[in-house]
């Protein structure tokens, strides 16, 4: 069985090789080949690996997914609700860039925004210079898998001191059954630049599929990147999404993750901080039915004076299973590090489960590091308070659940995005009869 899926993907690679982006670039071919070798040896991660102990990806191995060949047709109207007003938008359907649905901004003054296929032809030097520079050590099978098989993605390059005014949305749509969507993004923010990126994953249709997306993000000195990820895959989808970021001196990354969809989901965020750089990682995950949502974050403080803030909230209903792992590593020379992590979880059903693993690994002495975790349910006092004001118990619980989640949504600065995430949240919340107009 396990051999079968490896062979399948190896043969997929051989079949597609000629059409994959950057197929004319020897360095990339070599890289893909190595990654494929690694993958065919190791396969997908197993729960025996410490980093995967709470997430078993065997269901992904049991099905065989294939990249989409040809042109998928997606109705523009069906995507309307996922678009952020005022944002430039690159749309990828089943792992392929779709120009008709996209609104690519006019790239002025050396700014590069284009799909990976085009980037390999027009800016091969740029790609070669930065590709793989953040992910030097491919720690998980999914990374090798993505490197070997990625079919498209986005390249964003901001020269020194440049600022993109409108946010840039990367919208990944899966429409065909059993499709494999492997996007590989590369975002380079040169010193003093600024950009806001919104990454959305959407599943149309009811059939299952696999998304395995990897993003490398370079935030150079004094740059500022805001990154939001909205995951609304369909209920049968498998999703792996990894962001690997390197933040330079005095740089800053604000990341927020909203994970509502998918059957088996793994969200990974890895950030390495240089001197006096900062990051904040916020997250909200909500799972119901038989969903399994795993949030995996790692913050590496490599140099002194780094600041990191992390705040994740989870809501689990029915038979859902949630995982939160937050790992903070403070290197020996990263003195004066200031790190805080918080994770709060709400269990709504007696069949739901949450597994939490906050980790601190500290090798420097002059640091301030703290983490806090809570698991609980809605307080009876709060429900009673609302009941005493004439709200029935069920509605009261729904209101309080929504309020618990909405704290994270409220942190979004951009109104268009906030409203979009709120819609998704209301859709995902179990049995709410809350109306947006009331809020």
């Amino acid at each position, binding site marked *: 069985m396990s051999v079968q899926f490896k062979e399948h993907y190896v043969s997929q690679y051989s079949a597609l090789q000629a059409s994959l982006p950057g197929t004319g670039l020897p360095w990339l071919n070599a890289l893909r080949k190595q990654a494929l070798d690694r993958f065919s040896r190791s396969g997908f991660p197993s729960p025996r690996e410490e980093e995967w102990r709470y997430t078993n990806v065997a269901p992904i191995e049991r099905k065989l997914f294939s990249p989409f060949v040809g042109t998928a047709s997606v109705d523009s109207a069906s995507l309307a609700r996922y678009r952020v007003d005022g944002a430039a938008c690159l749309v990828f359907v089943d792992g392929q860039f779709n120009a008709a649905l996209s609104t690519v901004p006019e790239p002025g003054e050396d700014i590069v925004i284009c799909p990976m296929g085009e980037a390999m032809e027009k800016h091969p030097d740029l790609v070669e210079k930065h590709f793989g520079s953040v992910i030097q050590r491919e720690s998980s099978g999914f990374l090798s898998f993505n490197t070997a098989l990625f079919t498209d993605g986005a390249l964003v390059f901001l020269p020194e001191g440049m600022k993109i005014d409108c946010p840039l949305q990367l919208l990944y749509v899966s429409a065909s059954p059993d499709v494999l969507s492997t996007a590989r993004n590369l975002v380079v923010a040169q010193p003093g630049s600024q950009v806001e990126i919104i990454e959305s994953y959407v599943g149309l249709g009811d059939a299952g599929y696999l998304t395995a997306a990897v993003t490398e993000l370079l935030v150079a000195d004094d740059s500022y990147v805001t990154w939001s990820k909205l995951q609304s895959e369909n209920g049968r989808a498998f999703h792996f999404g990894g962001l690997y970021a390197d933040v330079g001196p005095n740089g800053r990354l604000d990341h927020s993750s909203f994970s509502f969809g998918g059957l088996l989901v793994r969200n990974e965020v890895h950030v390495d901080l240089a001197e006096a750089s900062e990051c904040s990682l916020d997250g909200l995950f909500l799972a119901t039915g038989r969903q399994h949502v795993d949030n995996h974050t790692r913050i590496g403080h490599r140099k002194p004076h780094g600041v990191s803030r992390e705040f994740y909230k989870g809501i689990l209903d029915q038979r859902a299973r949630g995982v939160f792992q937050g790992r903070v590593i403070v290197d020996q020379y990263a003195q004066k590090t200031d790190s805080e992590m918080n994770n709060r979880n709400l269990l709504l059903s*007696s069949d739901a489960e*949450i*597994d939490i*693993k*906050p980790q*601190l690994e*500290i*090798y420097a002495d002059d640091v301030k590091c703290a983490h806090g975790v809570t*698991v609980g349910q809605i307080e009876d006092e709060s429900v009673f308070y609302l009941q005493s004001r004439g709200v029935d118990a069920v509605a009261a619980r729904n209101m309080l659940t929504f309020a618990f989640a909405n704290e994270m949504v409220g942190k979004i600065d951009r109104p268009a995005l906030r409203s979009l995430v709120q819609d998704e949240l209301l859709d995902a919340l179990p049995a709410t009869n809350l109306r947006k107009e009331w809020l």
Partner: protein
Amino acid sequence: MSTSTQEIEKLIGQDYKQGFVTDLDADTFPPGLNEDVIAAISAKKKEPEFLLEWRLKAYRHWLTLKSPEWAFVKFPPIDYQAMSYYSAPKDKGDGPKSIEEVDPKLLETYKKLGIPLAEQERLAGVAVDAIFDSVSVATTFKEKLAEAGVIFCPISEAVQTHPELVQQYLGSVVPVSDNYFAALNSAVFTDGSFVFIPKGVRCPMELSTYFRINAANTGQFERTLIIAEESSHVSYLEGCTAPMRDENQLHAAVVELVALDNAEIKYSTVQNWYPGDENGVGGIYNFVTKRGDCRGQNSKISWTQVETGSAITWKYPSCVLTGDNSVGEFYSVALTNNHQQADTGTKMIHIGKNTRSTIISKGISAGKAQNIYRGLVKVLKGAENARNYTQCDSLLIGDKCGAHTFPYMEIRQPTAQVEHEASTSKISEDQLFYCMQRGISAEDAVCMIVNGFCKEVFKELPMEFAVEAQALLGISLEGSVG
């Protein structure tokens, strides 16, 4: 800064005071481990048949296991054939029946260690079971305890005098197949303490065991079994030391606690095995499995540990909260200096309804040491209204050490309330300056601050131990602050 640093460093560099060797005639098995050795141990101890079989079952299982590698500790592979599994001071006849019969040299050893067994008869204090290498050498206050119905004796004696109790409870909390070191211990354990508190009895005094490794090239494998019947209460202390040697010695103990309805067991440890020298040479590998089972309703098990010794400490005193309304507690101070490594913490398994657990862990890391808290809080589906509070704080002294926290939480019950907090800090210059400006020397100030950091745990220790623990902390810290 620099003056205080130097003074603090001087302070931390004190010697291990229990590192002497007692020159005794010993009856030691040649190195090596096989079924014959196990049979020989069993024969030496005049054990009943069932125990030998149990040992062999454990040994056969152990052979199928691999040494675990998940802990955050580094050590070269242990050669289990190179050490001896039995060493006992030679005695004439059947062994000591009272303190008068014990080898005076041995008694002197214990006197050096600060437990004058002979004096204890007079000072109405703590009942002590002293274990020297593989055998128990003396148990004090037997008569007085027997009056209350309490059985407190070496486990090797208990298997002969109370085989039915041993058979019923031995391995019922830590089964032979539990883990690598527990299986090894089950196969070759040589002695340990056995405590049985009958129904409704409050043990009239603190019970205590003193462990000492003396012989070279031996491993110490003791097994402690404490059973508290319905509505009983016992407080038990253990202390450990070993001579200074360049080679590492293995200590793989198993402790099992059983608390029935309304019973309470308080288990305190001051672990001061030889930690190795400042270059990390020698020291004890302390790989211990400790677990308590709150089998009855409203039962309570409380672990308090002060870990200052051992080259490597690897232990997770745990509570299985089976009974409804049962309570588990874990209070720990783990101090590592020089090249010491400690991977320690606890497991709280909530099974019964309304079970509560508290975890307070204080890790202090100095020199080049690595100090790890690793803990699991698991709330099973049936554990309605389970409650856990965890706090683990780390104090780093110097920039070459590490302090790590690996908590795991697995919650399957919506009415459970689980809280976890962790923080890491160092002794600030301001704190030191404040103390010194009030006329307190740098050493005393550091000691004071560290003691304050550990106060929540020390207050759980019985009085005599609390004093010892504070002194021990001061000694162990010598030469570390920067």
